[in-house]
């Protein structure tokens, strides 16, 4: 375990734990409320912010945060307040955000260092200041979810009934999409804009097959995500492959395995029942 002596490895593991907490908690809502496509739109449009960061010389992650929150609110507003279908709005913002990013990067002087890392992630290049941002955002996400846990559950389970019970579902929906935007920011450095959607959904999609409460689903997703990130990282080190892509591929394989496992489990349950 001599690789753990390196500072970049320690930071990568720390980042891995933080993104796992975020993925477990927010990924659970993304999966049970079927917001995968929205999350994809938010993360891709954040590329516009990365480009803006290069152009004006601020931290691209900060730019990404602005764009992610902006597009989250935009998608929310379009789907709630206009009659344009939500997936249309997402598709448009998705591509427009990416196009803006390309134009901004083209306009910025010199070349864009580490651009590949923002797209596909490089958990080994996570800096100390990145970690501070990730800690702050993860803490914020946890506080908001803890405070609004029962409201978010009812919004996800049956929105119409939530509204009838007096839950301000409109505002709550905006809070939820902003939480997704913040998770995107937490995940960017580690797995990149294009791949992060997989880490947001796979652990939660696996957990849902095996647990029966939202809290347990979150906890199991966090654990699974930690396992995927650590083992994926180790595999990428051993096989000398890109870290972000290896983590995602490993998660994907585990997802397939979980489908087999849950099928076997169901068959066994039904055969013992009969």
């Amino acid at each position: 375990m001599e690789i753990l002596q390196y500072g970049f490895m320690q930071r990568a593991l720390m980042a891995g734990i933080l993104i796992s907490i975020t993925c477990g908690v927010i990924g659970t809502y993304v999966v049970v409320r079927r917001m995968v496509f929205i999350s994809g739109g938010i993360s891709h449009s954040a590329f516009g912010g990365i480009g803006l960061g290069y152009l004006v010389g601020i931290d691209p992650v900060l730019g990404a945060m602005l764009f992610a929150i902006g597009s989250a609110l935009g998608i929310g507003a379009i789907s709630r307040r206009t009659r344009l279908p939500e997936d249309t709005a997402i598709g448009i913002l998705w591509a427009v955000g990416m196009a803006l990013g390309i134009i901004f990067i083209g306009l910025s002087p010199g070349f864009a260092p580490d651009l590949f890392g923002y797209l596909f992630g490089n958990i080994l290049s996570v800096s100390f200041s990145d970690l501070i941002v990730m800690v702050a955002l993860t803490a914020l996400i946890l506080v908001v979810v803890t405070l609004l846990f029962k409201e978010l559950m009812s919004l996800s389970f049956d929105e119409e009934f939530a509204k009838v019970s007096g839950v301000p579902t409109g505002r709550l929906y905006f809070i939820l999409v902003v939480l997704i935007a913040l998770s995107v920011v937490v995940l960017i450095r580690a797995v990149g804009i294009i791949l992060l959607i997989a880490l947001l959904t796979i652990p939660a999609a696996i957990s849902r097959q095996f647990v029966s409460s939202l809290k347990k689903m979150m906890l199991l997703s966090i654990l699974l995500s930690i396992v995927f990130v650590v083992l994926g990282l180790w595999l990428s080190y051993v096989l000398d492959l890109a870290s972000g892509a290896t983590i995602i591929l490993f998660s994907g394989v585990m997802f397939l395995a979980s489908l087999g496992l849950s099928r076997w489990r169901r068959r066994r349950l039904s055969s013992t029942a009969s």
Partner: protein
Amino acid sequence: MSNGEVNMAAEEVVSLEDVWVRFDGVAILEGINLSVYQNDFLGMIGPNGGGKTTLLKVILGLIRPSQGKVTVLGGTPERGRRFVGYVPQYSLFDRDFPASVWDVVLMGRLGQVGRFKRYSEEDKKAALNALETVEMLDFEDSQIGRLSGGQQQRVFIARALVSEPKLLLLDEPTASVDAPMMEEFYELLNRLKKRMAIVLVTHDLSAVSIYVDTVGCVNRKLFYHHSKEISAEDLEAAYQCPIELIAHGVPHRVLSDHD
């Protein structure tokens, strides 16, 4: 009516005055006037697509009428719905949703619990009572999607009851209930009507004839006279077909004689 005086003094829980609902210029509801009182058990019948569900959603404040006035428990529907229990026609929830029966029933208390607060002992007691009322206490830990349609429906009734409502709105509640449970279900409503006003939207005419106290018929317009009798003319007007087709198998005490 023997308790006419009591009834006169009964509190009006819902009042609709000349309510119109239009979608894209097409009228779904036309000039609806309706009063529901605190002791009413009202059965609402009418053809499919006639606006029964829309009418309930207007009372709940989920659909804003194009014109007219809606009053629920003396205020706007948005204010009043904290005291309204609602059992929707289809609960479009995901069968794999990780929530237990207990979680689902407690969600009915969200109008009572303060924001950012945990469910109190009182909330939990109300949930226990509601589950007991629908005889689903043994299932409190089961995942909601694993129950049968009839059992889920009982849980959704418990979720509507847990806020101790003054008005219970049920939209085709027997759609997913198997026949043997039907009678039990109506007996449950019969017990509940002592505690709250009930509006039951249904196409089950025989149930209407046995259990409810008053009958209304909706097809864009509302035909309702705060009695259990609907004239054949009203029914024909509402269903736009000869009365024999509708009344087939319905005990004739619902229908007043032609005169």
